[in-house]
């Protein structure tokens, strides 16, 4: 008996809520450093701040042992530029990223993370993560350094991207947090930031939260606060009955950190940037299908007749050997690798890939569906590394893919894994398991808190870490490193700042708002119905194509959802209450995206952003950031050059800024 239906049918009664329900019970928790969101960024931040002697409190929606987008593992670590084998400097790397993104990325976060990423990884090794081939399984492989036993991904010449056995990494962070005495609040949905005097734009002095099992209300009072929460995976594509397993972010990913920051008056940039909703769309289980992207990079793809799809370098030259897939080609100095939060890659730094006209060739009958990933065409070392090392350590790949498929008899030495059968256009991107892109499903792609060289937001006392909250910031490893860095700055601030004072009126108002869904007439909509409606508004009015009218209409509809259906929505238990409060955050997140989209009065290929009323692509006068914030409840926007991080009040070079701020 394992399902609710089975229980109900066999017992003829319903099971009671298993946890003590304590609505309205209020606890106040004091911290030097409060961390909101306990994924890899937040957990690493907690460790970093605790090691500096701060009293650290961390609030997490799931359970810290295994939660977060990076919580189920990692197989490769980008931008470890200072590892002993790397031939890429932090400056090279940062400039390559900024050039690829045409300036629409975060030079500060990139430089910080590739300057310290290797140190962060060494810290992970110290607490139990395997980062070297200590069992000599890959001795002699081209992607291995036999002296240090380090292993590399994507670019075997330049060796700045590490292959790691990170499947237990989150548990290692968890036990280290425990050892250091970090105070952990699991199952806690954060609902607001508290500010000095309750004033929007004031110093951040804490946060409020609700426990999703007991309904208890928490008032966190903190000297410094770090937002390390997830993105808004549920904003555009919500269909959990179908798609949770094809999602790269959990149900907890509701943009809560963005929303509470926005309401507190913090400044944001690039919220208008969205990308195809491929990873959280109606795809296939991650890594479960034949493909040659990311973790599978370099895998041979063949058609139904065994005919191999050729590879090309970014300049359009066909590769002659399998080995070339892992090497820079021609005039390339190094490759960046994929999956680092970039929508576009300059050719000089882009990895080689399948023939770009593959869809056309499929249409003409040159390659017959279905396609297959044929790992047998790789060297034994490479095959074992992709299937067994990377598939086996990457998030959601150990149990769901490696164990499941090998138990079912799949043998990479003998078998070819089929790619999904899709419309020809869908083979344009070599991550086939993402499925056919659906135009109206989008995902947030780089928007976040505007930070400075301390990773401080525009609000005093509030820092940000992680690739979701910090604009334009990267992927898994970068999240750790930002957490580690932001925590140093937050801990230093906490030592010097005045005692935080919580505004009781602000707490009371927030408490009333948070508990409204349990005190409603039960005829109100439930959280899922509300979430579906939010997603529909986003898809329809702020999809790939938008204009002034759709955006204004969308904003009106979100406001109505908030004030009508949302205000009357009903939650039957603390779990539903938590999900409902996340939906309220989603509405705010949607408003942020729409406001940002209204402000950018042009289209942009770099931002994958299309205004039907401003079709001109990337006009030079619009190549700038448009930081926006709320001031007395109204949206205020200013302009900032894309290279603001190298202009006054900052120093003109990356090195100088880093030296001034990092320590």
């Amino acid at each position, binding site marked *: *008996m*394992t*399902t609710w*239906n089975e229980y*109900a*049918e*066999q017992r*003829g009664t319903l*099971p*009671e809520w*298993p946890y003590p329900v304590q609505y309205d019970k209020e606890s106040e928790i004091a911290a030097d450093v409060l961390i909101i969101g306990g994924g890899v960024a937040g957990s690493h931040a907690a460790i970093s701040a605790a090691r500096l002697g701060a009293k650290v409190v961390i609030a997490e929606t*799931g*359970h810290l*042992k*295994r939660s977060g987008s990076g*919580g*189920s593992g990692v197989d490769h670590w980008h931008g470890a530029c200072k590892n002993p084998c790397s031939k890429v400097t932090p400056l090279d790397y940062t400039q390559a990223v900024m050039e690829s993104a045409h300036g629409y990325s975060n030079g500060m976060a990139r430089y910080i993370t590739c300057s310290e990423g290797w140190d962060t990884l060494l810290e992970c090794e110290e607490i139990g993560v395997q980062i070297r081939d200590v*069992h000599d*399984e890959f001795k002699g492989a081209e992607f291995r350094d036999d002296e240090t036993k380090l292993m590399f991904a994507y670019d075997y010449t330049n060796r700045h991207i590490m292959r790691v*056995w990170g*499947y*237990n990494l989150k548990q290692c962070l968890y036990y280290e947090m425990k050892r250091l005495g970090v105070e952990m609040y699991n199952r806690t949905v954060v609902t607001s930031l508290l500010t000095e005097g309750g004033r929007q734009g004031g110093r951040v002095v804490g946060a409020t939260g609700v426990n999703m*099992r007991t309904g208890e209300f928490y008032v966190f009072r903190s000297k410094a606060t770090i937002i390390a929460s997830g993105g808004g995976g549920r904003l555009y594509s919500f269909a*959990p*009955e*179908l798609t*949770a*397993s094809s999602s790269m972010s*959990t*149900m*907890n990913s509701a943009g809560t950190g963005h929303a509470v920051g926005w309401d507190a008056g913090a400044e944001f940039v690039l919220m208008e940037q969205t990308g195809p909703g491929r990873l959280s769309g109606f795809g*296939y*289980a991650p890594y*479960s*299908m034949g493909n040659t992207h990311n973790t599978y990079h370099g895998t041979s793809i063949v058609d139904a007749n065994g005919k191999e799809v050729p590879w090309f370098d970014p300049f359009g030259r066909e590769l002659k050997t399998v080995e070339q897939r892992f090497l820079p080609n021609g005039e390339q100095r190094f490759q960046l690798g994929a999956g680092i939060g970039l929508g576009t890659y300059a050719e000089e730094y882009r990895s080689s890939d399948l023939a770009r006209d593959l869809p056309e060739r499929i249409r003409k009958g040159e390659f017959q569906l*279905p396609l*297959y990933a*044929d790992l047998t065409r790789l060297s034994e070392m490479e095959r074992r*590394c992709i299937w*067994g*090392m990377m598939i*086996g*350590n990457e998030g*959601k790949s*150990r*149990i*769901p893919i*490696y164990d*499941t*498929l*090998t*138990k*079912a*008899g799949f*043998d990479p030495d*003998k*078998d*070819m894994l*089929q790619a999904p059968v899709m419309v020809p256009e869908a083979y344009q991107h070599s991550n086939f398991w993402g499925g056919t892109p659906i135009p109206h499903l989008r995902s947030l792609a780089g928007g976040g808190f505007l930070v400075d060289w301390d990773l401080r937001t525009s609000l005093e006392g509030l820092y940000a870490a992680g690739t979701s909250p910090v604009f334009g910031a990267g992927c898994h490893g970068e999240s750790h490193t930002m957490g580690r860095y932001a925590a140093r700055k937050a801990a230093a601030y906490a030592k010097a700042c005045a005692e935080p004072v919580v505004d009781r009126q602000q707490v009371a108002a927030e408490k009333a708002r948070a508990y409204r869904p349990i005190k409603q007439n039960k005829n109100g909509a439930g959280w899922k119905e509300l979430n579906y409606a939010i997603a529909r508004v986003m898809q329809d009015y702020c999809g790939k194509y938008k204009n002034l009218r759709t955006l204004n209409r969308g904003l009106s509809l979100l406001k109505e959802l908030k004030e009508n259906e949302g205000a009357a929505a009903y939650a039957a238990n603390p*779990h539903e209450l938590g999900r409902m409060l996340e939906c309220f955050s989603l509405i705010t997140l949607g408003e942020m995206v729409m406001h940002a989209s209204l402000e950018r009065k042009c289209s942009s290929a770099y931002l994958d952003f299309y205004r039907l009323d401003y079709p001109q692509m990337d006009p030079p006068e619009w190549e700038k950031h448009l930081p926006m914030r709320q001031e007395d409840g109204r949206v205020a926007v200013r302009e900032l050059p894309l290279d603001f991080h190298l202009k006054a009040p900052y120093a003109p070079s990356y090195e100088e800024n880093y030296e001034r701020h990092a320590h």
Partner: protein
Amino acid sequence: MSDKIYMTPNPATPNKGQRFDAILCNGCNACVEVCPTDVMMPHPEKEKPPIVLYPEECWFCGACIEECGTGALSMAHPLSQNISVNWQRKETGAYYRLGMKNPPPPNRRPPSGGKR
């Protein structure tokens, strides 16, 4: 088991993301404790497998299985996804899929990295 037919909602979807072997499961609720999205709830009776209350909130990370000390727990992606996981043996041309009847013998090779 009762023969009565009750009015119940349709089965929650996906149907069987987590499956418990009721004999092996000792009801320790370690899986309940760590699940990132609180998919399962403790059973009202001690030593019984948890109740999967919110299956659609599962993101199929496998945390529950890794946490389980008894081997009672297994997982399956939604049928709409597992039906797509097909492979072909190069030598024989034979087709296989996840969940097929009469599957081939399991491949027992452990993942890289050795025991933890």
